């Protein structure tokens, strides 16, 4: 007897009991669809975060003050003033850091900007002109400031798209004067809509020379961050160790544990994100796996009931010439078809839900959210559901195959 014929018998029996079959596979459907959803949303989140990180280029290295934060207690490290002009000058010496092509200081602080009677809350970024290239920002109107503006502490700003829109509406902003902390700044340029870069919403930013921001607005002489660009990706590791050596020498640090700065590469950031989402995904998948286990036990239960209920059918089939293997295969196949169908429905249902979730998330939470179909999870899910059918179906199938045809035929 061919497998195809057995498949027809088994699926026929399941179709004859439609509602029971549907209820039986519900557990599997829920289990598989939650795995698909977890994987899809997890991948979507990872893609979103990685997209932000990669938005500032893979050759960039970030030097930040304070030692690497390892927990909440290190929060204060973010405000350490260990990176200033002295450190910048030392790093910029070609003999100290050989593989770097640019150094961009970076300070940031939330502030309110006003134009006439309109005010708007945003963040002031003080930096160097290289930032526009690194963040891939270009002005829609006007221009961006130059190195000369940095040197001369020019009171000029480039506005993010939202700031411009809220303060000026549709009218022209370039050449107008805006006020921040009672100081007047001339608008040099307005950026196009950009959205998030490196977790900062560029549309809410006011960008100006770092010297101006440090002296006139923030009253500090250090940087929150120095963005270093390596000449090529191959030179990243070398550049990182050059930076560390230079700063340690400058600060007389011998023990790397006592560093008053830390260096992050894009690869580090991607790795951290990957490991966090990996752990989260693993946890959620474990929960989904429990629901699959419960679903499998449900299948076994129903199959056992079904075997008892169909005792007469089994006896009849044996009397008409079915061998024990025929019966075993039939019931095993029924279980596998049930769970396989549950898997397929679960994959479809989970994909649909994650697709809808992606639409909602991209509308209301993060515009860069994209639906990801987790192909590997779908294949694994299909495999797992079939395996559950085999694993939990074998016992009921053996029960069925071992029935004595006489007892079975007598059973009313």
């Amino acid at each position, binding site marked *: 007897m061919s497998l195809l014929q057995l498949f027809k018998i088994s699926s026929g029996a399941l179709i004859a009991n439609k509602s029971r079959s549907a209820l039986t596979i519900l557990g599997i459907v829920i289990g598989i669809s939650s795995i698909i959803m977890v994987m899809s949303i997890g991948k979507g989140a990872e893609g979103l975060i990685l997209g932000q990180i990669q938005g500032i280029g893979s050759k960039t290295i970030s030097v930040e003050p304070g030692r690497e934060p390892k927990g909440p207690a290190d929060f204060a490290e973010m405000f350490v003033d260990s990176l200033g002009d002295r450190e910048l000058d030392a790093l910029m010496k070609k003999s100290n850091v050989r593989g770097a092509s640019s150094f961009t200081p970076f300070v940031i602080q939330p502030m309110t900007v006003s134009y006439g009677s309109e005010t708007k809350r945003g963040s002031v970024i003080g930096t160097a002109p290289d930032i526009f290239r690194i963040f891939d920002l270009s002005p829609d109107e006007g221009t961006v400031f130059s190195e000369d503006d940095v040197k001369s502490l020019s009171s000029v700003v480039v506005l993010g798209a939202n700031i411009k829109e809220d303060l000026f509406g549709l009218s022209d902003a370039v050449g107008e004067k805006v006020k921040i902390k009672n100081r007047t700044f001339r608008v040099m340029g307005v950026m196009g809509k950009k959205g998030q870069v490196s977790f900062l919403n560029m549309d809410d930013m006011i960008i100006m020379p770092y010297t101006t921001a440090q002296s006139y607005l923030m009253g500090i002489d250090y940087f929150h961050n120095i963005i270093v660009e390596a000449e090529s990706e191959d030179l990243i590791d070398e550049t990182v160790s050059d930076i560390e050596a230079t700063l340690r020498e400058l600060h007389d640090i011998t023990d790397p544990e006592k560093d008053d700065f830390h260096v992050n590469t894009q690869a580090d950031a991607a790795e951290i994100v990957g490991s966090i989402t990996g752990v989260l995904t693993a946890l959620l998948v474990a929960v989904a796996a429990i629901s699959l286990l419960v679903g499998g036990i449900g299948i076994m239960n129903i199959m056992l009931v079904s075997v008892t209920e169909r005792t007469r059918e089994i006896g009849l089939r044996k009397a*008409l010439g079915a061998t024990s293997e025929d019966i075993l295969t039939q019931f095993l196949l029924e279980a596998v078809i049930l769970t396989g169908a549950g898997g397929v429905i679960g994959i479809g249902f989970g994909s649909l839900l994650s697709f809808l979730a992606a639409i909602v998330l991209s509308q209301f939470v993060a515009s860069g959210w994209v639906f990801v179909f987790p192909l590997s999870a779908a294949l694994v899910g299909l495999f797992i559901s079939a395996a559950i059918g085999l694993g939990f179906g074998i016992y009921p199938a053996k029960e069925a195959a071992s029935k004595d045809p006489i007892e079975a035929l007598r059973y009313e």
Partner: protein
Amino acid sequence: MALIEVKNISKVYGMDGSETVALRDVSFDIEEGEFVAIMGPSGSGKSTLLHILGFLDHPTGGTYRFDGRTIDEYSDNESALVRNKKIGFVFQSFHLLPRTSVLDNVKLPLLYSGIKESYWDDMARKAIESVGLLHRADHEPSELSGGEKQRVAIARALVNSPKLIFADEPTGNLDSKSGKTIMEIIQKLNEEEGKTVILITHETDTAEHAERIIKIIDGEVDRDFKVNGRKRAATDFSK
């Protein structure tokens, strides 16, 4: 050589003190083409005998030869093949699969026959036609009367063209009119198609449709005799 040779077979259930003897020292031969009724009251062991003759059970003593080989010479899979190809069963309670069309019910033995699927439809339809139910082929058992159900069961028993038909109280669950039709069909199978028929019944009236009656009482053959004035289902069946 007889189709069925039964020599001193016995069947004992249970063990160690609480033994129940279902059959004791039963012997008879049945030739190919014979119509034999095995008759006895309930509990006489006639069902046990049917199960042994039909390869559903093994005797605990004696030898049962079918087609020249003893039952012990048949492997489990060969026994299944005998049940499939050489024997057709008709049961008192029909044993049709619910929610399954008449056509598919009749096809059931073909699933296990190794016959190519493309022949199944024709074979099943021919069998259904022979019991006069072709117009009901797509109906489900729940839509049929008891007599019709038993005719479907007979079609199922015939579909693989077996040489031997076992009918276990085939009229037991039927009214007398339907019972008559069933006995008519069974007699025709024996006389016109040369099928060997073994009929199990507790009713003398029904048993007298056969050419020969083997009467079983308390697990032993009480009488084995030719029927004088055999009943014709077409004229004088009564229940």
